[in-house]
């Protein structure tokens, strides 16, 4: 996340002549307890994704089918999954693909939708028409079919292919939201003023339009992060998700959907997914507030 805040920090620095250094920004953020808590949580999840061994010494692939879906017992705090493997270890090891999907697809989607929405909203006419009509096509294509077709035709379904398809088929929604906010920002006084003194369009976009128009898209993106993990669950449910021996929260969700009489199968990944999503959401809100040029007055 620190990288992201640097990016945004850089944006803010020369915003409307005010200066706010990265350290100042960070200090402002760290003053908010909810931001700190969520940052710690998200970092924990990242660590879990990077080095799962730190959190559990149990082999997630050691399974005894006779213990299928048993509830918790000493040494197995989350009980056992449907295969009779230790569920705690599996939930820990499941963080990696889920964090990757949410992070890469979430941030990637924000960037793609943001840039295209910015262009479409700021340059009505040819640019808007081109981008919007392509979006129409993609939006009308049933995304689920695209996923099923592509995932079935690749020999090894990897997390990257899932991310790529989400990026390609998912941007039109965010683009349309961004485009609509740019519409309203485009004609604000400060943009008109900048344009009248001959500031180049790209600079106007970067410095004046984007910071003022990105809030709704950011809200949509942070909220959507949980949805992306949910999407991976749907893929598992449809049989085109990650294949064993991959472990992910999404596929744990998909399995739990078939075995509803064992609620703990669903409870633990759900808890992790929603905690992560909420953390992202609050971090997103906090950063937005901290960066908001209007709030800084």
């Amino acid at each position, binding site marked *: 996340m620190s990288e992201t805040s640097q990016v945004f920090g850089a944006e803010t620095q020369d915003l409307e002549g005010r200066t706010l250094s990265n350290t100042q920004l960070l200090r402002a953020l760290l003053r908010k307890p909810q931001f700190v808590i969520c940052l710690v949580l998200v970092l924990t999840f990242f660590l879990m994704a990077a080095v799962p061994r730190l959190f559990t010494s149990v082999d997630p692939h050691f399974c005894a089918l006779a213990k299928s879906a048993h509830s918790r017992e000493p040494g197995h705090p989350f009980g056992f999954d449907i295969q009779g493997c230790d569920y705690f270890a599996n939930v820990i090891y499941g963080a990696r693909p889920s964090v990757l999907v949410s992070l890469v697809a979430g941030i990637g989607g924000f960037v793609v939708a943001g840039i295209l929405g910015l262009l479409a909203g700021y340059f009505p006419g040819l640019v808007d028409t081109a981008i919007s009509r392509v979006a129409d096509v993609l939006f*009308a294509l049933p995304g689920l079919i695209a996923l099923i077709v592509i995932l079935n035709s690749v020999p090894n379904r990897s997390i990257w292919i899932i991310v790529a398809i989400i990026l390609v088929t998912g941007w039109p929604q965010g683009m349309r939201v961004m485009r609509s906010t740019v519409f309203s920002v485009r004609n604000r006084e400060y943009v008109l003023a900048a344009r009248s003194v001959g500031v180049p369009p790209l600079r106007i976009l970067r410095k004046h339009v984007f910071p003022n128009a990105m809030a709704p898209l950011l809200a949509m993106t942070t909220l959507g992060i949980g949805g992306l993990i949910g999407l991976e669950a749907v893929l598992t449910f449809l049989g085109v998700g990650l294949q064993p021996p991959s472990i992910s929260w999404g596929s744990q969700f998909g399995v739990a959907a078939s075995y509803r009489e064992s609620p703990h199968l669903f409870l633990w990944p759900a808890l992790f997914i929603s905690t992560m999503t909420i953390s992202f959401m609050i971090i997103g809100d906090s950063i937005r507030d901290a960066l908001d040029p209007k709030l800084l007055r």
Partner: protein
Amino acid sequence: MIRFILRRILAAIPIGLIVTLGVFALVFAMPGDPLRELAGDKPIPAAVLAAKRAQYHLDDPFIVQYLLSMKDMFTGHFGTTFAGADIADQLRLRIPVTLKLATLGLVFQWIAGLLFGLYAGFKRNGVMDRLLLLATLVVLAVPGLVLYFTGQYLFGVELKWLPVSGTRDGWPMSYLLPAICIGITGFAGLARLTRTSIVDTANSDFVKTARAKGLGEQRILWRHVLPNALLPVVTLMGIDFAGIFAGAVLAESIFNLPGLGQFMFQAIKLKEGGVVVLLSTLAFLMFILINLAVDVIYGAIDPRVRNV
């Protein structure tokens, strides 16, 4: 305005053709042999397989299959599905079901989303704002499947307030429960976006100027904040509207409502290119109309956006 609308409709025609071709290609590329899938485990004699394949043109090259199904679509001879259902019959049966479900579901979603979002936006960090955050958390944590089954069990089986499933009780009784479920799963996103947008707008220069001019809070709210804050909100509502035809699959399946979503899902499962293209075209038409409406509404909300 009229020219703008006409231009968009004209532009939709080639896009529509690209979409149909794309959809058909996707379905064509899907793995699996529908006729074998239909037959189940039992072996099917070669002659029967060949006759079926011929009946549905499955042996023709891709482009021939595509043109044949486009011809069917434009001449209104929809034919039958692989399972033997009359497609025109199915459309007559299913379009009203989906429309009823979608409208009611969207009404719930929009009312809850807008009310929560507006209120939370005006009173940021107030009780309602926190409640919204909590509600979002719950909605995110509980997948649709669980919500739908719980709702069905509680209100249908246990309390018997509403029908468990099916359309036998007519509109609106049969549609209330699934529509409320759709509303609950979808309102959080709209509410969050509305909240953010309101907060964003409420802090902008022109609102401050208005306030400095001594305008009343109510007037500022309705005349200055709302129009500007609503653009992304209207956009998302349009996206929701367009997406609900596909998004209602789960509700239709669990509440046994014979709608278009289920039809589409079946068709995809069986690789019925013709049906998928037909339904996608319907969805595309809706989508174009909704998008057009949204772009026109932009102009109505905020006069400066006009002439897009």
